[in-house]
């Protein structure tokens, strides 16, 4: 008989993990199963569902389909001591770390702005110890964490991370597989306290539809305890019933439905509007210094009361029309050298 043994244990802090039984009973006690009107403001959703110490995860990928309206609101309400999933987190995490809201991160890909360069503010926070990397992880491992969380099991067996220092700094464990006797990585499940996801359309109960790539949002939305959905448009419920196969997040996972047109700005919303490169550049430039960070937050977050007011500041409808037009370009002609 083959004996299963733990061969090696990662030393990273285990964050966002729940015993599946405990999580199930929490869900039973705390989550509504009745279709009820969940529409509320960003201000209300953040103050109601995000608490200090929460493990939060933001949907989308890189600069695509990120719920920036909620990110700004978290900063405006000066939430603190949040732990964040660094799952290809880019602009969202940079702002939250810079503003002092997030001080712990589990990192697969963070502190970078993709091809635009490295993130100045969040790297500075990590290098000076203001923000702590509590564990390292990889892309696939994050995916499996949410998948296990969604399935209600404590871990996913996998072959990733084997042999690396990234494993040593992670919260995973390596065993010998009881079937093959080869080393196997156990990736612990993750049930984030709160996930924030921006979608194309959603009815008032929370049945949400996403156009384009879902990335991790199917698993993430189904694994999270609390889920704040921001949507470009709240659509009538009969529209959901017209094409129910397009609903990737059903209502019983959703706690708040927040209607925010252009809610991903300055990130891209597939088939809706394009990246606002001017605004992202302005942030990258200002975030080179602490004073610059203060200036940015003061101008675009603290002295602004609503997302509409923010949209006026970044150039208003004229700018938004331009971003919309760019996204809808039917083929960019690039003969210019």
């Amino acid at each position, binding site marked *: 008989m083959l004996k299963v043994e733990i061969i090696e244990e990662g030393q990273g802090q285990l964050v966002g993990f729940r015993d599946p039984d405990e999580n199930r009973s929490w869900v039973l006690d705390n989550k509504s199963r009745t279709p009820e009107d969940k529409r509320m403001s960003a201000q209300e959703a953040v103050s109601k569902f995000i608490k200090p110490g929460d493990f939060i995860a933001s949907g989308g*990928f*890189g600069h*695509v389909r990120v719920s920036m309206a909620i990110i700004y609101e978290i900063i405006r309400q000066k939430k603190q001591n949040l732990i964040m999933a660094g799952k*290809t987190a880019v602009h969202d995490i940079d702002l939250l770390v810079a503003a002092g809201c997030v001080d712990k991160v589990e*990192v*697969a*890909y*963070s*502190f*970078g702005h*993709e*091809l*635009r*360069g*490295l993130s100045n503010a969040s790297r500075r926070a*990590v*290098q*000076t*110890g203001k923000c702590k*990397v509590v564990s*390292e*992880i*990889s*892309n*696939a*491992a994050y*995916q499996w964490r949410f998948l296990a969380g969604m399935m209600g099991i404590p871990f996913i067996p996998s*072959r*990733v*991370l*084997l*042999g*690396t*220092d*990234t*494993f040593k700094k992670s919260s995973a464990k390596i065993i010998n597989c009881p079937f093959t006797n080869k*080393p196997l990585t156990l990736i612990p499940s993750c049930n984030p306290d709160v996930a924030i996801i921006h979608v194309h359309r959603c009815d008032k109960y929370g049945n949400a539809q996403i156009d*384009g*790539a879902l*990335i*991790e949002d*199917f*698993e993430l939305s189904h694994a999270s305890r609390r889920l704040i959905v921001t949507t470009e448009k709240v659509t009538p419920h009969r529209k959901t019933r017209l094409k129910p196969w397009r609903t990737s997040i059903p209502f019983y996972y959703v706690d708040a439905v927040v209607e925010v047109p252009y809610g991903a700005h300055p990130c*891209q919303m*597939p*088939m809706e509007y*394009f*990246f606002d490169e001017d605004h992202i*550049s302005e942030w990258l430039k200002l975030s080179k210094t602490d004073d610059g960070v203060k200036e940015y937050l003061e101008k675009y977050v603290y002295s602004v009361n609503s997302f509409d007011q923010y949209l006026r500041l970044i150039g208003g409808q004229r700018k938004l029309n*331009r971003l919309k*037009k*760019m*996204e809808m*370009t039917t*083929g*960019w*002609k*690039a*003969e*210019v050298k």
Partner: protein
Amino acid sequence: MRNFTSDEIMITCMSREIRNGDIAIQGLTTPMAIISYYLAKATHAPQTTIMQLAGNILTYAKAPPQISLLFNEFEAMRRAVHIGTQTEVYEVIFKRLESIVEFFRPAQIDMFGNTNNSWIGSDISKLRLPGGFGISDVAALYPRTFYYCPRHEKRVFVENVDHIGGLGFRTKGEFDQRRDIHIISELGVFEIEHESRRMRLSSIHPGIKIENIKENTSFEILTAEKTQQTSPPTELELQLIREKIDPLNIRRLEYLSGKTRENALLNILDKELSLTI
């Protein structure tokens, strides 16, 4: 005088590693890798499937599209035959390890083929980098792992990496199965030799001297008695890179840093934006 630049010969070498029918994984922030996939597809490997990690999309394109900073996701969406989820991307990778090609760019690589993209120095207070992302997932599993290093410098080619994110070979270790690690730099093509587990020069790019490699590497690289020369890019390859795939010279960004990079980036963004309105 060479009639090609360092980035062009690197892209050609990378493209030639792709076999017809391979699945090429397109990650974030790696324009040279994307160009090499498109080049392979337009030349010797038309049946290459491109799977975009950023959008999790399988794409097929006959003619090589032009690469872009801004329209990467946009283009992929319109060329897609299927849009999956990230679970599906990893599912495909793990089921088809043998036919996957993926080019990673390490911040550090050592003589045993270990790589690091997490931080530089003994702790993270010195220089924090983005992290392990996909490399830690697959480097030990791929039968063929590919790295590209546009800047062949001592601080990139180090004796020991500060953190093993991508597993090469340790002096002794548990991952002993035979696997190939190829490294393409601006100076030559290298591999990790199976017997010694050490980096060996496979071919040197035209116009480069062995001394150039030695001067820019922190450890001793094994060499053959008679070093092979990399075959230079063909006229067709150069034409495809320069005129069809990357006329805006986005590939150059991989060589630049600091203010120069920022300016070049803004310049390309301006050009791309001017094409849209």
